[in-house]
């Protein structure tokens, strides 16, 4: 019996080691595809006259920016002001106040001279009732919708009902879009108007950066190590995976913080689902599902240049809630669309992207965590040999370090947003150090998400915001 148990432990340990090498090789491939795309992006010279001409053309498709806000009094005025100053020929900013309990609505009313307007709201999508719609007496394209608290997904559906333009850009009200972000994100829609239905921009960490008048004026690495680890994580997620998946039209996630969509496509799929905590991923997967079912020739694109700056949590408790929510969202989405997994009808999406997400993103934390437990138990009771255990820890460490360091290097090789040598060295150190505890912590939190999903699937959890360049405050 003991021998059987020992051979099971050794077999499982070897399986996890193989799994870790497989995932690091796949990630390396994704990073390489991303690298090739980014190098093209960096060295392909573009005529500056083109973007100048597009910026002033009446033929550019107008955009409705949808910004749901829940207790965002720390940043809301600054964020909205920055949105209104974006460089784009025609757009409107639609802020959806999701039943905030703080001063969000009052601040907006005072700052932008809002009045209760009779603006018509359609009912294409089922959503919570609107209390009031406000517009500014000043000639600025700002609409503020006030409604009871019903969650982010429902708020976005309300925004979609009110939005007037053919493209909708979803942003977090506490994020900062770069001045030319809309112009750059809209380019794929102009270059390939028949096929593009959604575009994802890149989300970068604003902690540590200097923000003046709603603009990031100096890019810097954050001061806290927790935020630095997240810089590395964001680089890994956006520059590696998403660019590579986008190259094969298999992009499954467009961050809720910044995405540009065809409104017609969103209405065709019924808008956002309100019964999931990962509404951003679920929507994109549903768009794929719908487009492939309808045999549409479509593209969902990732663009590395339009940048959205966001504040990441610097407290462990907030980070834990956020990561648990993301993981629950991933599990829910993959479960909802399980019919697409390994289904040849969905091409590469079904045969490669979906299995990758299920094996590595959904079950990855569970496999890794059980690997740690089995190895520790095996070592403790002298059931597995030290070589195997050592190899497991070595494999696990190399896998983590490889992915993180490679992402930082990719950033340095291509986009180079961090100007100083010191920044590069700090990020490289962070990418090594994060594998010595932080990543394992995330693995535990993400594995716990399975448990939380059964207990309390829909809870979003509170978010603590400091506000750009301000004192810390709670916006629960």
């Amino acid at each position: 019996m003991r021998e059987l148990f020992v051979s099971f432990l050794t077999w499982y340990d070897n399986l996890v080691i193989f799994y870790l090498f497989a995932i690091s090789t796949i990630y390396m491939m994704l990073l390489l595809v991303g690298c090739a795309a980014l190098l093209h992006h960096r060295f392909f010279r573009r005529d500056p006259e083109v973007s100048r001409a597009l910026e002033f053309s009446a033929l550019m498709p107008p955009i409705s920016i949808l910004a749901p806000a829940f207790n965002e009094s720390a940043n809301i005025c600054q964020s909205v002001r920055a949105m209104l100053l974006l460089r784009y020929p025609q757009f409107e900013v639609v802020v959806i106040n999701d039943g905030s309990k703080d001063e969000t609505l009052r601040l907006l009313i005072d700052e932008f001279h809002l009045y209760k307007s009779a603006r018509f709201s359609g009912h294409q999508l089922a959503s919570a009732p609107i209390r009031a719609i406000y517009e500014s007496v000043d000639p600025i394209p700002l609409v503020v919708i006030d409604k009871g608290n019903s969650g982010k997904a429902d708020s976005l559906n309300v925004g979609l009902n009110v939005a007037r333009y053919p493209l909708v850009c979803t942003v977090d009200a506490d994020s900062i879009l770069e001045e030319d972000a809309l112009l750059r994100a809209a380019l794929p829609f102009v270059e390939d108007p028949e096929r593009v239905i959604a575009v994802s921009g890149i989300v970068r960490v604003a902690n540590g950066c200097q923000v003046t008048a709603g603009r990031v004026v100096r890019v810097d690495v954050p001061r806290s190590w927790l935020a630095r680890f997240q810089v590395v994580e964001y680089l890994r997620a956006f520059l590696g995976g998403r660019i590579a998946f986008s190259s094969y039209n298999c992009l499954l996630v467009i961050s809720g913080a910044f995405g540009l969509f065809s409104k017609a496509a969103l209405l065709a799929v019924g808008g956002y689902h309100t019964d999931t905590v990962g509404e951003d991923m679920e929507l994109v997967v549903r768009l794929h599902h719908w487009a492939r079912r309808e045999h549409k020739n479509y593209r969902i694109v990732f663009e590395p240049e339009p940048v959205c700056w966001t504040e990441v949590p610097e407290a462990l408790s907030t980070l834990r809630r956020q990561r648990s929510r993301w993981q629950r969202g991933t599990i829910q989405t993959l479960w909802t669309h399980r019919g697409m997994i390994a289904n040849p009808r969905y091409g590469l999406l079904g045969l490669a992207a979906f299995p990758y997400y299920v094996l590595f993103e959904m079950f990855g934390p569970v496999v890794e965590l059980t690997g740690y437990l089995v190895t520790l138990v095996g070592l403790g009771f002298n059931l597995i040999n030290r070589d195997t255990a050592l190899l497991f820890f070595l494999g696990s460490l190399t896998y983590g370090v490889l992915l993180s360091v490679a992402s930082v290097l990719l950033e340095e090789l291509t986009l180079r947003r961090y100007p100083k040598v010191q920044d590069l060295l700090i990020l490289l150190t962070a990418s090594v150090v994060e594998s010595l505890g932080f990543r394992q912590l995330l693995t535990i939190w993400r594995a716990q998400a399975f448990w939380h999903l059964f207990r309390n699937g829909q809870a979003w959890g509170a978010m603590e915001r400091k506000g750009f360049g301000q004192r810390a405050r709670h916006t629960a």
Partner: protein
Amino acid sequence: MARLLYSRYWQTTQRLLPIIVLALYVMSILVTALVFSWLDDQFVRYALACVVVQTVSLLLLTAGLVAGKIIGTRWNDRRQRRIDRISDLMAQYSSGAESQAQLLEAAHAHSSEFLEVWEASLTRLKGSSRLRVEGLLHETGLHRVLLSRLSDHDPGRVLFAISLLRKLDNPIMEAIEKALTHPADVVRMAARITLAARGSPQAQERVLRELPRLPFWQRVVLFQQIPGDSPALHEYLARAFQTGDDTTVLAALEFVLSRQRLQPIGPASRLAGSTSVEVRIKFFRALPFLATDEDPVVLIRRGLDDADWRVRTMSARAGGALGIASLGPLMAQRFARATHPVEAGHLARALTTLDGDSWRRLQEFTVAENEVTRAIAAEVIEKHLAHVHQEVR
């Protein structure tokens, strides 16, 4: 490498690259595993080889990039100092001071920095100062360098040369025209932009002839470049509207929409009744800017009867923009039974601009039975009153 980057083979290369690297990676693991042949357990041997290959390649890459960053940062600092120095000299020169000799010397020693400053100065300066700075390109002899770059195979270098040469008051168009046959699309586009904005009527005509075949975004860009008083443009538009080719007509309508200036087009009923719904939509959208031989009332009535709601919407918008009061009763009637909120919105807005009793009719809709009609009427009336109030203020 640069040619590959701009060629149509890049996509294939991009897809093959990871496969090549994967093959190299596997080979490196196999070779490294040979070094660990003393390990009995095959699994451990290959796993260890995997760790070593990954670690070594990362270390090498990291060392290379950190070194590159250090060198690059220092080089950039030095370059920035040179740019600052040349900018100071350029500022003195443009304001009349005698710094020409030093500028020429700097241009010979650091041509790339000089050209960067020169380009920025031309964007900023006006009048005689600009002329003075512009002349520097000839005096330094760098114009010859740029002209020779126009026949370069590297698209990036050609693009750079075109973007600088187009800044001159009298750019050498014959040389730029040659770039229209360059294999890289990005260069051909840059040449088209320059010729559309500054070229001879013949060159402009050549660009305009190509317009319908170009992708939408390139048309959008070129429409912004062509001067409104270009004879080639007027001739092109006059011919384009009379062709039966939908693509040509659409391009011409897009041009009118992008410029939003009055454009004579002759008879237009064929466009109003085109079989292409896209042509009909764009025609009615552009109608306020089209001087046609036909009665616009007849055209708009036809548009309001169209089967497609988008065409009806644009007809309503055109009716409002042209302020044709006689259309008021018909628009009010259509507003009452509009099927799409966007169409209803445009009809209501049109009613606010028409004379006669259109305004009163619109007000009556605020007590209509249909909820959508009522809500849209209320919104449009509020907006109109707010607008009037602002004008009064």
